[in-house]
């Protein structure tokens, strides 16, 4: 069973639908016991980092997620959920993340040329790093996925498994052992996105 962490941030409709489409048994929950009983955990999220991190801490689920990840349970962060896996974010101030992956979140405006639009929105190709992640076992390098973001993960090169070119190579996905994250939205990335979710569900 895959547990989708519900902490009052964003809309889980599409994620639930896409997990159903790949045959996963998914449940939306804010219950610590359900997270502990689950085989896998997905941490979604949209909106501002500080607000979302505060909401997650307020539920007390942040420590449950960390405990379960430490036990080796597969964890996938999506979009802001991926960003929260890192140590720190500099989105409107300075905020602590879960610290499961080394690195931090900074504005993409710091690295992309000034004539590029912000947010980075639309379909972009994935460039894999040297070792192809198991998360990508059903897809190919150059496949397109759907992005919507204005901040990105940096100083996380050792955990980066894919980047997307947008005037600079932006971190598109990260993984460190059982902890994984996608900056893009697999639930909005057509068959490529479904194939990534399927691979995660088979971890």
């Amino acid at each position: 069973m895959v547990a989708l962490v519900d902490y009052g941030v964003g809309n889980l409709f599409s994620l639930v639908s896409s997990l159903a489409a790949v045959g996963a048994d998914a449940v939306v929950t804010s219950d610590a016991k359900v997270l502990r009983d689950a085989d896998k955990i997905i941490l979604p999220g949209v909106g501002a980092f500080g607000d979302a991190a505060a909401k997650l801490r307020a539920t007390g689920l942040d420590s449950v997620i960390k405990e379960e990840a430490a036990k080796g349970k597969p964890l996938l962060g999506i979009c802001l959920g991926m960003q929260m896996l890192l140590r720190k974010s500099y989105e409107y101030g300075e905020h602590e993340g879960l610290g499961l992956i080394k690195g931090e979140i900074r504005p993409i405006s710091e690295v992309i040329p000034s004539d590029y639009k912000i947010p980075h929105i639309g379909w972009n190709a994935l460039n894999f790093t040297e070792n192809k992640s198991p998360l990508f076992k059903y897809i190919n390098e150059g496949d397109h996925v759907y992005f919507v973001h204005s901040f990105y993960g940096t100083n996380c090169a050792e955990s980066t498994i894919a980047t997307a070119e947008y005037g600079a190579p932006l971190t598109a996905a990260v993984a460190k052992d059982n902890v994984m994250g996608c900056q893009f939205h697999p639930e909005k990335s057509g068959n490529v996105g479904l194939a990534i979710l399927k691979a995660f569900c088979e971890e």
Partner: protein
Amino acid sequence: MITKRIIPCLDVKNGRVVKGVNFEGLGDVASPVELAKFYSDCGADELVFYDITASAEGRKLFTDILCELARSVFIPLTVGGGINTLEDFDRVLKCGADKVSVNSGAIRNLSLIGEAAKRYGDQCVVLSADIKRVDGVFRVFAKGGRENTGMEAIEWIKRGVDNGAGEIVVNSIDTDGVKGGFDIEMLEAVCNAVSVPVIASGGAGCIDHFTELFGALPKVDAGLAASIFHFGEVKIEDLKKELKKNNIPVRL
């Protein structure tokens, strides 16, 4: 590299797609769910649904269908038509829409854009503007293009972006339905005024019109059309292959 988006637009009334649709191998061409799946399989990058229903029953039917559709189509979905309040945003977002397009609702009440952007994020709020030249000036029209608001279009769009609109749909009334190509002049004026993504609408009649659009205006992010896709005059796969041949980045 970010790709140019090709977006079919579907008008839905009382739960059915209106305007003639003509596809081989599609059982029920008026079913929004079937048509959405078909377009998604053909390589559409995004879908726009306009609810042109007038009744409350029709509206309820629309949201039911949206839910059903969002369970089987996994590309970004934009919904417009009859969006006047935050409750309207909430209603369609809960059913799986990713973005919400406002037009007359924002003309009546500009603060709708800001309030929605604050609650759901800028990326969720699309400002759609129907624009027509009147005595050489771009004017914003309301009520489906029937009523001149008197507002200058570029200023209106800038105000929309300043208030939080994350994307702009520029629908040129002058070129709409003529199938003579997109309104490059109007689109250029908008692209030069704002830094958010701009979606071109109105005037596409053939593949070359898209090549011309993205060639002339690299700043335009997407091309939207309805009838040429629905009638099969332009197949999305063919269109994208042709764009690629012309070195315009697309998702194939």
